């Protein structure tokens, strides 16, 4: 058992967040075949604990920059499901007014200046937000979410170098799910931990279990404290696994890029199931309480997708709006 040392209310809030992400992504899986959601979806089922463990400890004003696989991060940071769902359907009431789609979720009021589909792109942007926070002295910190593939990009190394040089309040969160699209990390990087890349820049770096919310929470807490106290950046590599294919609602083991047994092994270590088991074991929360939360989240998701039906498509006369 590995639970953060926080109140029951807080523990339940984390459970809510994990569940919200999982059920939202599963709803996309259920609806995608209708082909009304015309946007490439990169689902994060299986990786929820990283998003929740990090974002649940950030202030609303703190910044996160996410990737093409951003739903979980944005939900965990507090974005309204209606705003995301509407964007997935390209509606004018979507968070990016139908201009961004699934890969470019944004909500400045939640500390989400945007998400980028170019691998490695989120990393310098977060460092820039941290530079901004430091220069403005507003006490905010910034988080860059990225995958294992991004650590092969020059922008990752350039960003670590600059963040370390200026001791910026930024946290580099690598979700190592071992695959960049269909290429295994062994085909792309020499053996060794991603976290070891931080050492060359003098950035405190750790590898940890990304499927254990308790573990993620603990490492994130230390990194957040360090950043807030002016101690500079931290690189955290969380090993985790995506259950779905790189893009789309299906699984991909059938194509041979990975084995079903590997997927099943990781499914046994489902982050949501592990957390639920742990909090039940701790004895202060009943399964009925959790079931009630499940129901509440389900109706939240029902509401967000029903909301989409009331939304309008963007007016084609606005095609050129927001270019500049």
């Amino acid at each position, binding site marked *: 058992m590995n639970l953060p040392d926080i109140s029951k209310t807080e523990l339940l809030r984390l459970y809510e967040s994990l569940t919200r992400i999982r059920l939202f992504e599963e709803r996309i899986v259920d609806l995608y075949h209708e082909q009304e959601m015309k946007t490439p979806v990169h689902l994060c089922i299986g990786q929820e604990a990283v998003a929740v463990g990090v974002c649940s400890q950030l202030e609303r004003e703190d*910044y996160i*920059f996410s990737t093409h696989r951003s739903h979980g991060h944005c939900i965990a940071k507090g974005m309204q499901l209606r705003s995301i769902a509407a964007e997935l359907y390209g509606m004018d009431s*979507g*968070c*990016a*007014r*139908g*201009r*961004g789609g699934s890969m*470019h979720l*944004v*909500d*400045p009021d939640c500390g989400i*200046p*945007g998400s*980028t589909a*170019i691998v490695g*792109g989120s*990393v*310098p*942007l*977060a*460092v*820039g*937000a*941290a*530079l*901004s*926070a430091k*220069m*403005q002295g507003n006490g905010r910190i*910034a988080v860059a979410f990225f995958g294992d593939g991004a650590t092969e990009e*020059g*922008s990752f*190394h*350039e*960003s670590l*170098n*600059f963040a370390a*040089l200026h001791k910026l309040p930024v946290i580099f969160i690598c979700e190592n799910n071992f695959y960049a699209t269909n290429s295994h990390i062994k085909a792309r990087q020499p053996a060794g931990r991603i976290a070891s890349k931080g050492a060359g820049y003098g950035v405190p770096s750790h590898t940890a279990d990304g499927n254990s919310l308790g573990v993620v929470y603990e490492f994130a807490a230390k990194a957040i404290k360090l950043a807030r106290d002016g101690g500079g950046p931290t690189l955290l590599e969380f090993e985790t696994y995506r259950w779905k294919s790189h893009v789309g609602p299906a699984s991909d083991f059938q194509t041979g890029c990975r084995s079903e047994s590997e997927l099943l092994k990781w499914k046994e270590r489902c982050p949501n199931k592990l957390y639920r088991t742990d909090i039940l074991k701790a004895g202060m929360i009943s399964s009925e309480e959790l079931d009630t939360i499940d129901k509440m989240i389900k109706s939240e998701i029902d509401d967000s997708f029903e909301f989409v039906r009331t939304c309008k498509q963007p007016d084609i006369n606005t095609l050129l*709006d*927001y*270019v*500049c």
Partner: protein
Amino acid sequence: MPWTEIQAASGNTAKKTAGQVGGVRDLSYRDAIREALDQALSQDPGVFLIGEGIDDYGGVFGSIIGLAQTYGSSRVMDMPLAENGLTGICAGAAMTGMRPVLIHMRVDFLPMSMDQIINHVAKWSYMTGGAVKVPLTIRAIIGRGWGSAAQHSQSLQALFAHIPGLNVVMPATPYDAKGMLLAAIAGTTPTLVLEHRWLYDQVCAVPEEPYLIEAGSGVIRRSGSDVTMVGISYMVGELMLAAEELEQSGISAEVIDLRSVSPIDEQIIVDSVRKTGRLLVADTGWKRCGISAEVAAIASERAFDALRAPVCRICTADCPTPASPVLEQAFYPNVAGIVAAVREMM
């Protein structure tokens, strides 16, 4: 900075008035840039300058000299040799309340930051439905001569003008350099300011108080009736010299300084071509798919019936810049070539 309190420029040039104190005076292109940046830094704590070696004794060819001493290393910041990463870092800062000015001593360093400029900076406003703006200014200097060769003298405006979401301006006078740089910093559209190194010693009257010249408007530098000559940056001066020479043989040339290659002032081109019936375009860059092609296309689409001769384009040769002085001379267009081309059109 109370940017909204800064007025748009009232004209396209300024005049010195005798006995005026603290007003309009002669200033070089480099000093006009320096004054704009000094004013931006002093009035808005969100403005900072960053670039490779910008705080050294040279001060980016003198264009920011002394500013590092005045404002300190946190606001006039040296940076690692990491053009793409630092463009992203500046973009992230711009998205979150700052107004960075990223400075490259050579335009040739921009290709290393193409991912951040094209995929991120230029797209962010659109991709976020206008929710997040990127008020980032990038200065880059076009080199020429003394064997600068292929990687220290490129004129890459066409690459960037192709990308929606970016402003690309190329001031040709000290007056425009100050106003366009301040407008870039004051605005919310990411703007690339391309400065030709050979313009740095040019002098003209420049008002001391800050003023803004928005991207997108061209200027008629000389009125004429027989041929429209559209130029940008350093080529505007070459066109003015050519126009003087042409006048001696009775040809009246109108010279348009485009100033901004994105957005481009279509109307000033169309109106002039309708008046003169002939169009010559002079660019500091290559001919193929260049700005001159865009200007020619505008005339073709909107003033085809007025054209009395084929459009003529004066550009650098379609090869990398050579180092040899002899080849270099052949590579760059010159006044004699412009004059000959116009005579051919008449």
